């Protein structure tokens, strides 16, 4: 502040102080922005744009529009009450013939099968038969070829296909779907899994974050206060897991937790239990393994921030008469908050995306949303669903981050 004032006072020209201050401030902001710019551009071009393009799949689906152009056009006038008229069926026959000839029937059948599971092969086989039709009337013939073409739900699905955008994937990601006549209804309970899965993902992530904080904070404090001679050796124990593959660590937990694993055998040898306890393939296994993997992520940011806190602060508080706990709680702890916030943020976000570890040591009730995203991406090849689930997860994470920021985040904790 003093320097600035001196500099400003020394300037000979007659610019008002306010203008100068604004200008200095602006220059400072610009300099700060330039520091951020390389990473910003890198993330924008190399991440945000590609991801945006991929996530677009969550709402954009023009399969029916481009592959069945005549039918979708003819359906725009359909009121959705009775079955469409003969001219629409003629358009359908034409589209089926073309799709059959161009080998695009697979894509159409797959799209219809998403919403009406089990109809895919019937749609394909009806197209094979329809490809030989030459004259109308098409309506009775097509219904006779395959009764699916007399179904209200099939037609209302095709009508929705006349738009290139669909909320279907997002709806399904929160357990809603279209009813037979196109109204939005809740999915039946035997297939409604996603709301539970999101809540479970959230619960496991919060639990693991809390556990890592509980276990990590005391160790971070010890490491930050011990002389380097000791703390550096202990630090090796904290960073060693980074050299050990996630796969190996997961296998290691199998060795420890399985029925005749190290822990069970030890407890039984000590006569603490008489039967092996079920420690793996359930929530215990998931939480233990995830907490172990995430612990360094919570611990190290806390440690880094603790290292920047001058030990004089707490000594000053003690010498002014504060008790040890009071001094710790009122002077030291608040200064560690940025580290706690950063560590917990990292762990929480990373937990949301887990899928390999809970799959290998968790139970049937521990599937997290990440596993279904992987399933849709690589097994079902349903990128619409994968993107929709991913987009919801991303949005939820951003929202939580925003709330977190308002409550305890960087903007709140201002010191120095």
């Amino acid at each position, binding site marked *: 502040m003093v320097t600035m004032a001196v500099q400003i006072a020394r300037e000979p020209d007659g610019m008002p102080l306010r203008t100068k201050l604004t200008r200095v401030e602006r220059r400072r902001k610009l300099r700060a922005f330039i520091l951020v710019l390389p990473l910003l551009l*890198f993330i924008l071009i190399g991440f945000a744009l590609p991801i945006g393009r991929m996530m677009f799949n969550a709402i954009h689906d023009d399969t029916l529009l481009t592959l069945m152009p005549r039918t979708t056009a003819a359906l725009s006038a359909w009121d959705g009450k009775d079955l469409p008229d003969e001219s629409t069926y003629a358009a359908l026959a034409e589209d089926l013939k073309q799709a059959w000839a161009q080998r695009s029937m697979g894509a159409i059948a797959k799209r219809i099968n998403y919403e009406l599971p089990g109809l895919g092969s019937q749609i394909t086989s009806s197209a094979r038969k329809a490809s030989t039709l030459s004259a109308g009337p098409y309506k009775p013939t097509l219904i006779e070829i395959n009764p699916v073409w007399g179904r209200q739900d099939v037609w209302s699905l095709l009508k929705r296909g006349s738009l290139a955008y669909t909320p279907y994937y997002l709806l399904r990601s929160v357990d809603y779907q279209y009813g037979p006549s196109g109204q939005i209804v809740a999915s039946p309970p035997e297939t409604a899994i996603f709301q539970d899965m999101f809540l479970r993902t959230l619960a496991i992530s919060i639990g693991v974050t809390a556990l890592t904080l509980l276990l990590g904070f005391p160790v971070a404090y010890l490491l930050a206060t011990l002389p380097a001679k000791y703390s*550096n050796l202990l630090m090796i124990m904290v960073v060693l897991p980074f050299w050990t593959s996630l796969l190996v660590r997961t296998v290691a937990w199998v060795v420890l937790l399985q029925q005749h694993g190290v822990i069970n055998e030890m407890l039984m040898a000590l006569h603490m239990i008489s039967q092996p306890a079920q420690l793996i393939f359930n929530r215990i296994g998931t939480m233990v393994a995830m907490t172990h993997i995430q612990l360094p992520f919570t611990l190290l940011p806390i440690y880094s921030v603790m290292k920047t806190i001058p030990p004089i602060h707490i000594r000053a508080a003690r010498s002014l008469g504060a008790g040890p706990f009071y001094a710790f709680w009122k002077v030291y702890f608040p200064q560690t908050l940025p580290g706690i916030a950063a560590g917990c943020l*990292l762990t929480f976000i990373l937990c949301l995306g887990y899928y390999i570890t809970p799959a290998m040591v968790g139970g049937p009730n521990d599937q997290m949303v990440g596993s279904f995203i992987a399933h849709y991406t*690589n097994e079902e090849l349903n990128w619409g669903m994968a993107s929709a689930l991913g987009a919801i997860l991303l949005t939820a994470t951003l929202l939580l981050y925003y709330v977190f*920021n308002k409550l305890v*985040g*960087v903007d709140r904790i201002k010191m120095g």
Partner: protein
Amino acid sequence: MAASTYTSPIETGWYYLHRLICAAVLLFLIAPILVIIPLSFNSVPFFTYPMPGLSLRWYQEFFFASQWRVALYNSIFVAVSVTLLSTTLGTLAALGLSRPNFPWRAALMSLLISPIMVPVVITAVAMYFFYADVGLLNTYLGLILAHTTMATPFVVITVTATLTGFDHSLTRAAAGLGAPPVTVFFKVTLPLILPGMISGALFAFGTSFDEVVLALFIASVDQRTLPRTMFSGIREEIRPTIIAAASVLILFSIAMLTTVELLRRRSERLRGIRNT
């Protein structure tokens, strides 16, 4: 360092309780590593004690199959490059973001850390198309950049955290005393944020070193990394070779970290610095 003599019994109790908790947590951290290393000498491909016999076959596989050597080299090369690149980019960004009154900080921050919020399977597919467009598929540079995207958020978050308590009057004082900005950074700012940078760098290294999905999508077999090799064949079996590989890496890192620590102590002794 023992509890000071003038403390109350409760305080002494807390002191030892704290030590006890820390010992338990540290044990929890390394227990899996301790139990898994002996199994790398198991003669059968199962992860169960007691072992029916001892054998070096998994080490033989690790040291004599060229794929593991190439993978080790690639992993270290890629991870080190990623660490340097992301630590630089992330620290610069964190410095900028931590300036007082930075506009839209929260929004920018969430954009910059968003790569760890998107499930990596989706990122991998999305990035595949991008890297295909720019011609970086199946190259080291492509893999390094892809990993850097995933690794930089860690640096941004940890360095920002250490900068939150940062006293900006220190840099102003240095500047006021005539130090150019670069000197201010290296002499004043850097020593203060170094713990955060090191943590961030460690996370960045770990992210790249243990990443398998992007390595599978963006890179080809020529850039195969350790995790890619470890996950290969996982449909059929989990081979104990991965434990042999892990054991070798652990020994290597213990040796390296201990050497660094010994060197540090030596230089400290030479410079006559005494830690209190």
